Structure formats: structure tokens, C-alpha cells
């Protein structure tokens, strides 16, 4: 008895249950309600866009790993998140070949060029989306109205547009609530905004389902709640202030919160752990920066939407926030700076 060789490991011999792939998987689950609702609202178009973006991202990750002779990292699920997120930010009738292009860019440029998972400075999905915005300004701002009768029976003609051909968009394109407000001062109903019954990107519109996913992740301690909290409160306070000053020209704070990509961006993109700061204080600053920038761009910028740029800028800032805000080490008198 007792002659067996024993395993040796180093302490700690206990381990908290969470693992990186499990966290990533849960983010995917959390995104599904918003994605499913997008399909409900925008029909087959949305389904094809989200599926294409996701498959492209996963495929790109796999191929790039193989090309660089590394073990495939598809198993960590992070590419799936990038793909779904990218799909959710695209207009429903976005030409699929463009979505493929965006997916490749997101993974190859947004992630791989930096060294893969953990090293990306920017949220990869947003990198993909930003490049698409620059390359195809018309396609990415052509919207489909929500809840079209025939949304499950067919796809819009632009969806299967041939690569490098000018896509033809259906006659029935709708303006998003943000551009409607910006250019014509028409404010959408808060309920419609909250539910996502307006035109917009596939998954950006339903605040309710996005929040549901976010709350799930927060409850499972897989998301830093401070980031959306900081963004929302900044947006609310700032736009509330403007509204109080002049309700004629500035939208209500609830309109600001629920319109455009703010919800999706704040809950699922700004919270990308890799590209956000790591200390609590740093995260508050980061969130407030995003929130402030969103209001500034929306109110005074030339664009109807500002979430994407705000987050990308904040991503670039986050290493600097981390350097400036280092926790005070126990037993030392000062914070260290570098």
C-alpha cells in the first residue's frame, strides 16, 4: 500500500472555477437574446448578416493560427464573440460579402496583428466595423425598417450583392431614430427604442435584450458592471443637463440612452476586458470618457452616432489610464507612477 507515485503541483492547490473559455462562452450566451431578437425584428436579413460575420471570424482565426503554425485558438470562443458583435453592429440588409470582409479585418487586423487574444489594444469587432464604415459608407448607413411583413419570406436584394458591385438597396429604407433626430428633430418613442422596434443595426436596437444579457454576465461576475454604469450615468447626466438648458434643440436623456449603439457598445464592447483598464478607478474614468464623448459627438459632431469612435478612442487611452492610476501598494505611502 501507498507506493503509488504522487502528483506534485505547486500551491495554490485550489482553483476558482471560472476559466477563460467558460467566461467567453457565457458572453456568447448573453449575446444570444439580442441576436435572436434582431432576427425577429429584421428577419432573414439579420440572420444572414450575423451568421456570416460569426463564421468569418471563427474561420479567419482558425486559418491564421494554422498559417502561423500555432495551435488553433478557436476553442477559447473569443472569435465567436467578435463575430456576433460585428454582425450586431451591421445594418440588416448589409451585403454579405462586405460582412465577410469586415470579419476578416476584425480578426486579422483587430486581433491577430496585435498578437492574438489578450494583446489586442482595440475591441476587434469595432476595428472591423470602423474599417467597413470607411470603406462602404453608403451600405453601412442604409437601414431597413423594423418588423417588415415579408421579413421571413425573403431577403433584401442588397444582401447577396456580388462583391465589388454597387449594391442595390430596396426602396424602403428607413432613417434611424438618431439621424431622424439629428437632421429633422423627430424623436422616437422611448418604448419603441427600448424594445428595438425601430430601424438600426441588427442588434443595436433592443435595449431590453442587451441589458438582459448584461445583467446575466454581471450576476455571474463575468463582466465589470462599473463600465456600463459609468457610461450610462455620464450620458444621462450630461444629456440631462443639456436638455434642461434647452429642450428645443437637445434630445431627452432617455432618448440618448436608448438610441443607436449606446446600449450594445456600453454593455458588450466597452466591457471587453482586454481593451479596458483593470483598476476600479481606472474603469470609472474610462467609462465616463466614453459617455462624455458619445454625447459630444452626437450633439456637436457631424455624425448621428458616436459610440464606436468613443469606445475606440477610450481603448487607445486605457493603457495610459492603467499607467496613471496604479493602486497604492500596501504599506507604501504613495501611488507609483511611471
Amino acid at each position: 500500500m501507498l507506493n503509488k507515485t504522487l502528483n506534485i503541483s505547486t500551491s495554490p492547490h485550489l482553483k476558482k472555477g471560472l476559466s477563460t473559455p467558460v467566461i467567453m462562452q457565457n458572453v456568447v450566451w448573453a449575446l444570444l437574446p439580442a441576436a435572436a431578437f434582431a432576427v425577429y425584428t429584421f428577419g432573414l436579413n439579420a440572420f444572414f448578416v450575423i451568421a456570416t460575420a460569426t463564421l468569418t471570424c471563427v474561420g479567419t482565426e482558425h486559418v491564421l493560427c494554422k498559417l502561423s503554425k500555432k495551435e488553433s485558438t478557436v476553442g477559447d470562443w473569443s472569435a465567436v464573440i467578435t463575430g456576433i458583435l460585428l454582425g450586431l453592429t451591421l445594418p440588416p440588409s448589409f451585403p454579405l460579402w462586405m460582412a465577410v470582409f469586415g470579419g476578416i479585418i476584425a480578426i486579422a487586423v483587430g486581433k491577430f496583428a496585435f498578437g492574438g487574444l489578450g494583446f489586442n489594444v482595440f475591441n476587434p469587432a469595432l476595428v472591423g466595423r470602423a474599417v467597413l464604415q470607411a470603406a462602404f459608407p453608403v451600405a453601412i448607413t442604409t437601414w431597413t425598417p423594423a418588423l417588415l411583413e415579408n421579413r421571413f419570406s425573403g431577403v433584401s436584394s442588397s444582401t447577396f450583392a456580388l462583391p465589388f458591385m454597387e449594391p442595390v438597396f430596396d426602396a424602403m429604407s428607413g432613417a434611424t431614430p438618431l439621424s431622424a433626430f439629428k437632421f429633422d428633430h423627430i424623436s422616437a418613442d422611448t418604448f419603441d427604442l427600448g424594445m428595438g422596434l425601430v430601424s438600426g443595426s441588427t442588434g443595436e436596437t433592443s435595449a431590453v435584450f442587451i441589458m438582459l444579457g448584461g445583467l446575466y454576465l454581471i450576476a455571474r461576475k463575468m463582466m465589470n458592471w462599473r463600465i456600463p454604469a459609468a457610461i450610462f450615468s455620464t450620458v444621462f447626466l450630461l444629456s440631462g443637463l443639456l436638455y434642461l438648458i434647452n429642450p428645443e434643440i437637445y434630445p431627452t436623456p432617455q432618448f440618448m440612452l436608448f438610441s443607436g449603439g449606446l446600449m450594445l457598445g456600453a454593455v458588450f464592447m466597452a466591457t471587453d476586458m482586454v481593451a479596458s483598464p483593470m483598476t476600479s478607478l481606472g474603469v470609472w474614468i474610462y467609462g465616463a470618457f466614453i459617455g462624455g464623448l458619445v454625447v459630444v459627438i452626437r450633439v456637436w459632431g457631424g455624425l448621428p452616432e458616436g459610440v464606436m469612435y468613443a469606445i475606440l478612442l477610450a481603448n487607445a487611452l486605457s493603457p495610459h489610464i492603467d499607467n496613471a492610476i496604479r493602486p497604492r501598494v500596501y504599506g507604501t505611502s504613495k501611488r507609483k507612477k511611471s
Partner: protein
Amino acid sequence: MFRLQKNTFKHGIHPPECKDETKDLAIRQFPFSPVVILPLAQHIGAPSELLVREGQEVIRGQLLAKANGFVSVPLHAPVSGTIRKIKDVPTVSGQMVKGIFLEAFPSDTQEVWGGDPLDLDTASAEDILQGIQDAGIVGLGGAAFPTHVKLKIPEGKKCEYLILNGIECEPFLTTDHRVMLEQDEDIFMGIRYLMKATNAENVIIGIEANKQDAADYLKSKIPADLPVRIQVVPVKYPQGAEKMLITSILGKEVPSGGLPIDAGAVVVNVATVAEIGRLLPLGRGIQERVVTITGPAVKKKGNYLIPIGTPLRFVLEQVGVEENISEVYMGGPMMGVAVSNLDISITKGTSGILVFTDENTPKKEDKIYPCIRCGACVDACPISLLPLKLGTLAKHKSYDEMVDEYNLMDCFECGSCSYVCPSNIPLVQYFRQSKAIVRKRKSNK
């Protein structure tokens, strides 16, 4: 201010406690093994210096080796018998050190060698420190640091608080819990000696909230003339670390690179105090200690009073373990050591023995993923280091930057960061290695 009210330190983690199976089991005497094996290095500091030769007969309690300098303690015979061999023996760290094989006399009464009682009323502070060293006492919480060294108050410093560490924040371990419930008289006697040795006016016993029964019991037993206060603190790892305990109890921090006395405190493990209170009035040396033996593979789990030097193999045979054991830890699961063979013995620093089989090993070796900068390690580190940053620097061998910019040397290797890391990055291992390299470089200079 804020922290004072919270009664605990910043950050930290909550591993599963796993104490239920042994916390209600009273301390039981363990049988004597036919042979005890006593390494001469059972404590931090210089190994004891041998006083006996092969073939010599010794009596239980007799001095086998004397202290070799100030940071060293003597070793006493835990059993009457014959010195069979003196040769190198393996220790838990994997190193070989000189050790004594002592074969017990069969059916001996095991009566203990009479000592030199230390009279509390007439003894001076120096006498007491000497007495503690002579008794071979080291920190029984697991650190095995010679206690008298800690109690020596440096010139110009004052010990305002004597803090007894009854935290026992490591999962599975329940020895201190039992000692507090069963050895109150020894503890209070020990406090009397220690108050005299340190001149402390306040005594605080820190106990985690999961041992409320021990706190209540001790409170009911505090002698009227002793200025002892019990302070219950929230359950959190690594609260048993001296610095964390001081912060929890006093709301102050020990300066970086400093000692508890720099915050006006001396911290001694509660079982160590009990041992002082038990041995000094008799003038005896330490011969046995309480060890929690538990884990899913152990049949008779419990808290046992085990003679120092009892071979681990004998211990496991006596308590009975599953056939297919795969991992054995000496100490707790957070900071204890996984042993590679069973030919080592119980030493003064052994606080627990945990046994697992393949199926129930708490942690399977897992794939390491890249750091996703989730910040969990930052939130866990009790001294607010940036483990992820230190981890990256360790990989690049940027040791100077680790020390100068990121306070590597303040890391006390509690393992909280590794525990929470979802990517399985062996952070604390990196830090142990880095610290060792830094120290070596320094000593080479």
C-alpha cells in the same frame, strides 16, 4: 477609517472552507510510530546542532540537538528510544538534510524527562525569551519561524499590541480552532509569559467569523486580570498573514519591507502561544503538535496530537487512506506543499495533511490561456500589486522593473492571484522564482 469599520483588509479571496468534517472533532492522541525521523532543520534559520551519537539511548524530552545561533532552536526527543542512524533525510521542500532516526523502546511508559520550570513571577523578559528558545518553539501556524526571534523587541520600538493569530484562513485546517476550544488555560498562561516578554499592554485574539464558537468560548474564559480582547473578523483569505491580520485588527498597515513591530504589534499564532503556556511552566521542550488530517481520501479524519518526527507513511496507514491516492499536501491547500514521497515526517511546522485521489483532486492541471486582462488578480491581491503586469515582466525576465516599479518583493506568495486567474496563469510560481532570482543576484553582488 473606512477600513477600521470593515474590520478587514482590502481585496483577498473566498475559497471554499471545507472545515466542517473536522472542526467538531476533538484533538486525539496519535500512537507512537516504531521509528521517528527528525530532520535537524525543522525551522527557518540555522539547523540545530547535533548532541547525540548513533547507538545512544535517549529519554523522551531529552535534548537531541541544540540551537545553532540566535535564529535557531533546539530539538528534543519526542519518544524514549535508541538513536539508530544519523544520516540525510528528505524534507517537505525536497531537499535532503541531516536527520536522526530514533527507534522507540517497545512498551515504554514514555515518561517525560523533567525540565527546568520557568517561574513566571521571577523570570525577566530575557529569561522568557531564552525559555521559549530552549523549548524549541517555532511558529506552529506553518511558517516555523523561531518564536523568540519575533518576540525580541528591537531597541527603540515598542510593542503596543500582542496579537494572537487564531484566524486559520486556510481551507481544511482546524487545528487552531480545536486548540482554542480545548486549551484555553494554556493559551492564557502563554499570554502571561508573552506579555512579560514583550511588555505589551493590550492583547487581542483575532478569530475568523467561522469560528464564532471558539471566540465565544475564549471570551467566557478570559481571566479577570488579563487585558485580553477577542476580535472576530470576516472570513477571508489570506487573513492569517501577519500583515493582513494587523490591518484587519488595528486598521493600520505594516510599512513595505517592515515588520509588524513597525506598526507596534507582535503577532503570534494561537497554538504557539498555547504551547508556550503548556511547556514553560514545566521547562520542557516541544515534542508533539496538533495536525489536521483530512481530505476526501482519508478514512479517519481528525485533529491529532502527533509526535514530531512521525513518518508520513505511518500517519496515513494509521488513519487509513484510499488505495488510489494521488496528491498529498503538507499544510493547507493555498500555501501548502504537495509532497513527492511519503518518506518524510511530521515536523514542527506541519499544520495539516490533506490527501486526495485522482477523482477528487481539487484542481486538475489545465491548459494555460493568454491573460485576458480581466483584472481578477488585481482585485484579489491583498497588497494591491498588479499580478498580471508582474507576470508579463517575469516572462520577459525584467526582474529589475518588477522590483523597482511593481513592488515584487512585497508579494508574500499567498497565491490569491493564481487562485482567481481564469486563464490558469501560474502567477505565484512566477513570483516565487523571480524573487529567488532577485535574492540570489543580490547575494552575489
